[in-house]
């Protein structure tokens, strides 16, 4: 019975991490748009390539934030949460 419970915990954590990383779609699309527009702008005005590239990198980094939140959640779910949950389960079983 205990094995089943721990298995459910580990599986739930892995599934949760996978679901959290669905958030990676958003920043991917957003950054793709940003880079496409930057390419257009450079094609139109090649002389301001440096400025456009700097601004694009800034925007990409800011757009990446939501993806990184998901990443942090996924990392916590894979490396930190299972140990905590198993500890809680063990305490509950001990009592």
């Amino acid at each position, binding site marked *: 019975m205990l094995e089943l419970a721990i298995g459910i915990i580990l599986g739930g954590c892995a599934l949760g991490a996978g679901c959290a990383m669905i958030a990676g779609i958003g920043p991917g699309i957003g950054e793709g748009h940003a880079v496409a527009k930057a390419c257009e702008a450079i094609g139109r005005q090649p002389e301001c390539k440096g400025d456009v590239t700097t601004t694009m*990198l800034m925007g990409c*980094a800011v757009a*990446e*934030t939501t993806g*990184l*939140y998901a990443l*942090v959640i996924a*990392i916590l779910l894979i*490396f930190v949460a299972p140990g905590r949950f198993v500890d809680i389960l063990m305490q509950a079983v001990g009592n």
Partner: protein
Amino acid sequence: MSIIFLLLSVLSFAAAIVIKILFVPASEGIDITGAHVFFTVKLPIQDLPITESQVNSWCVMLGILFLCLFLTSGLKTRNVSVRQLLAEWIVEKTTNLVKTNMGEFFEGFAPFVAAVLGLSAFSSLSSLIGLFPPTSDINITAGWAILVFFLITYYKMKAGPWIYLKSFGQPVPLLAPLNIISEFATPVSMAFRHYGNVLSGSIISLLVAVGLSGLSKTIFSFLPGALADFPYLRIGIPAVLSLYFDLFSGGLQAFIFAMLTMLYISGGFPAEEYAARKKKREERKAARAAVMNANKRESA
């Protein structure tokens, strides 16, 4: 004399490696445990663990300090050395960057921005010599982000606390809770952005390295004896990933952290209100001085 500073700068990075070799037990295979705790200082309220990231960031700070001393020692006005040209180039570039992004009022921020940029870049790049990069610890980046948050709030309050409080009610007072949340989201997002980028890079590199060693074991299992155990595929291939994650991503995140610092500080500063307040104060001062002068003349 200047060579001594360069040696000390290299030594402080070497010291971090020596400390790591002495304190961290050798382990086989993969372990993603975060920063190792070297020792714990007993304090009355809560124990203070001295972790790898703290020690490494102090070593990086010492390294940068001695590097700066090396670059700026023996300055001359004629027959300048390459070293001095490099130092002048760094100072000029950061001053220009700060001036174009923050305006004339914040020109004095150039050393702070350069310090943030250098510390962040060197911390991320320290993973190239096998150290635990301090920026992949949330505590380090959160510390920097909190410092930036205090600076932002200080410059927002520069035009008086009432204007600062009133800015939460913009554009409608109903949105005040959301404005307060977004105020606190600034340091959180800055900390998580830097930490997440560096940590994800190191985790992906580690997973790829471990996966490649397993793959090479299955592919080269026909070789006799110890030759089959040697991870051939791990030669060179992880270095390509390191090129992106350590060099490009580390440098880019350092630049972005410094850039966001500048933009947030200068963006939150209410320039018009500050100018109006300054003007009003000067007018009041002038009026008071005029009254005093008149009183003096009367009494004389």
